[in-house]
């Protein structure tokens, strides 16, 4: 069955606050082969004007992922996880994520389209800090493959 187009415009509850840990940033930076000192060295990050070490740009997916789990579980959406392929990804930053940030994400379903029997679901997750200020918008398009 195709993804239910009625989910367009629907939003999920804000995720539980995610506290960005220094060691998590270092671990993620190593995993994406990031070598800039600002990802690992607190003194280098502070010298560059940041409160703490800076996460690599795609670290935002760790916070966004919690909203995608909500999307897949959305009642009535009819999204079969075993048929989901990541189609595209976009991050738009107001500022970079730094260690110590407490981040909350809210997902909204932007569109559901049909293409050659597949469904394309685009979801926009707004990620904000503890003060409610925007940090990054993470947008994913998921391709839900048609039944065999």
């Amino acid at each position, binding site marked *: 069955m195709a993804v239910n187009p009625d989910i367009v415009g629907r939003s999920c509850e804000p995720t539980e606050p995610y506290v960005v840990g220094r060691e*998590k940033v270092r*671990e*993620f930076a*190593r*995993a*994406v*082969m*990031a*070598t*800039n000192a*600002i*990802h690992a060295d607190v003194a280098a990050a502070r010298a*560059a*004007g*940041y409160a703490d070490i*800076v*996460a*690599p*740009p*795609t670290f935002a*997916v*760790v916070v966004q*992922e919690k909203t995608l789990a909500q999307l897949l579980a959305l009642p009535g959406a009819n999204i079969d996880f*075993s048929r989901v*392929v*990541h*189609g*595209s*990804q*976009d*991050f*738009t*930053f107001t*500022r*970079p994520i730094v260690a110590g940030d407490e981040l909350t994400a809210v997902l909204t379903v932007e569109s559901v389209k049909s293409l050659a029997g597949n469904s394309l679901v685009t979801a926009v997750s707004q990620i904000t800090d503890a003060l409610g200020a925007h940090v990054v918008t993470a947008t994913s398009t998921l391709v839900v493959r048609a039944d065999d």
Partner: protein
Amino acid sequence: MPALTQLAVGDQVAIATYRFTRDSLVRYSGASGDFNAIHYRDDVAASVGLPGVLAHGMLTMGVAVQPVVEWLGDPGRVLGYQVKFTRPVLVDPVEGAEIEVLAKVGAVNAEEHSARIDLTVTFNGDTVLGKAQVLVSLAASA
């Protein structure tokens, strides 16, 4: 930091190669929390019709921006980053997989003190990311 006034559309700003091994995939699974078994188990990959274990698209995306971050000297200068996942990266258990990243200036916006850097990311001679674009700030102070 690179100077905006010295950039022209088409200039190459970085080129780099990266080797993915099965270890890289396990490491990324742990760091990201994406434990989909198609990224580390041959039997699971085969059971869903894949030719082998694949790198996470988000690993390829995460690594592909690194030459640009190196060129900028500051990860906070990345204002935006987008890709389409067009082809999978198969990671051989013995040989791994080699990814090449070529970064060129796609557009310069003097008014906004920003530039768009376009990435060409290839594996075995085929591009694996489409419309891979990084929007970067080249303002005097970030």
